[in-house]
């Protein structure tokens, strides 16, 4: 699994003359799981949105599976599944209707849509309207649409927001399964325990800059916890 799936070189983003992300570079091999960690306004979501092709970088390049969003937009979008943080479902649609719509757009068979609903534990709520769902159930439905087509790259923005401890554990187990299926995963979180358990690599961001990156193991060898490592990256030892 040495194939490079994600190659990010010198990516920056400026919005209304304000630098949101500065000069980020990294590569990620197939099957890798990278956690983007940082506080509010660190630039995690902006990095994910640039990777998802929603925001174009002001400078630098992003290549996923050898494809650039600028050159081949539709082919690029086939390389990824994206789970946003700020999405409102149509409350009048059932979970089944919602997932069927997304599945049809990705040309995924209906059986797979049902399978994915079961995978995120929503098979019994398939006929219920999404408007009646809890935050955790909506998160799981969002996760379901992201993994529908078994994408080479899975991008998730704060995926464990609103999940209870049981589903947070399940999420970590699911990520491992997704990785074993050959997907590469990048997710953002401010929950460093989740990053430590689910990811192999972490990248600490602060005010749009990378202040630390490396293997979770290497951070654990050097610091008692990822919290300590993060504080050290910020110069707050």
């Amino acid at each position: 699994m040495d194939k490079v799936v994600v190659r990010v070189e010198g990516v920056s983003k400026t919005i209304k003359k304000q630098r949101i992300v500065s000069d980020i570079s990294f590569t990620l091999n197939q099957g890798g799981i990278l956690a983007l960690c940082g506080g509010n306004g660190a630039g995690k979501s902006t990095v994910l949105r640039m990777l998802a092709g929603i925001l174009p970088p002001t400078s630098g390049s992003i290549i996923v599976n050898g494809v650039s969003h600028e050159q081949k937009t539709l082919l690029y979008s086939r390389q990824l599944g994206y789970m946003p943080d700020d999405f409102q479902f149509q409350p009048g649609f059932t979970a089944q209707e919602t997932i069927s719509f997304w599945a049809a757009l990705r040309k995924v068979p209906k059986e797979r849509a049902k399978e994915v609903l079961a995978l995120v534990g929503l098979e019994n709520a398939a006929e219920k309207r999404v408007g009646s769902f809890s935050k955790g159930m909506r998160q799981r439905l969002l996760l379901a649409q992201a993994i529908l087509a078994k994408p080479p790259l899975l991008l998730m923005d704060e995926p464990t927001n609103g999940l209870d401890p049981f589903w947070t554990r399940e999420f970590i187990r699911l990520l491992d399964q997704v990785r074993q299926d050959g997907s590469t995963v990048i997710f953002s979180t401010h929950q460093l325990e989740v990053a430590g358990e689910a990811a192999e690599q972490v990248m600490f961001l602060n005010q749009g800059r990378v202040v630390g990156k490396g293997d979770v193991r290497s951070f654990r060898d050097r610091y008692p916890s990822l919290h300590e490592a993060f504080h050290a990256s910020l110069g707050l030892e």
Partner: protein
Amino acid sequence: MSNMIQLAKREIRLGFRNPWAYSFLILFGAFSLCLLAINAQNYLQGYSGVTASMLSLILYLLPLMTLFIGSFSLTSEKEDGSWHLLSTYPLGTFAFVAGKYAGLLVVLLTVTSFGYGLMGALGGVIGGGFDFKTYGLFLIFSILLILMFLGAALFIGSLSKNRWQALTISVSVWFFAVIGWQSFLLSFLNLLPYTWTKPLLVTFTFLNPAELVRIFVVVRLGGGSILGPEYYRWVDWIQKPSGGLIFGAVCLIWTVCSVLSVCWFWERGRRRG
């Protein structure tokens, strides 16, 4: 093409679960019955003061309804984060816009057809209905208004950042195109040399779908003389047997151009993020 159909299906489903659509359905149904009652009391064939009032009433309601439903549909995609997620799917901008247009068109035409169906059925049962030509022209008038204003509505939706902005722009466009149009023409054209009046009048009429469709229906109903000498040539070509086809082509061009401009604007936004 298949993604466009998926978008259209979703829009139809959304439309029929939207309380707005039912509010308009009830409103348009009640409105159609009022038109029937007016006609039953003042039955005249062809163009008359009564048909003129009825045309005006349709002109007040349908464009406003179309502008609201159409523009809100696009702005809600932005506000709900739905467009951000959709843009990570292998979905072209044209498929998105055309799918939304087709779906909304089905919803709006269903609402309108329900109103006309009610009017036609009751007119047939209790009497006092419209003659077939007038009824047909009213129906065509309504369909064309929806077709063209839906393009404008999507354009407003693509410009607006949120529903409030869409609401403000929609009301402004409706007021300008429907209520204030005559005053605008009078005040603006009087400032210009007389030789400019006619070509500008033609240009402005083509730019305003409400006025364009109104003139066509008025002429077809036999009321061309009330439009004045400036419209003499309009009356001439609309009354010809090929007039309907030419007018249909003009409406089609108007609609296609507005949908394409929405695509261009939306794609520009997509590229800029």
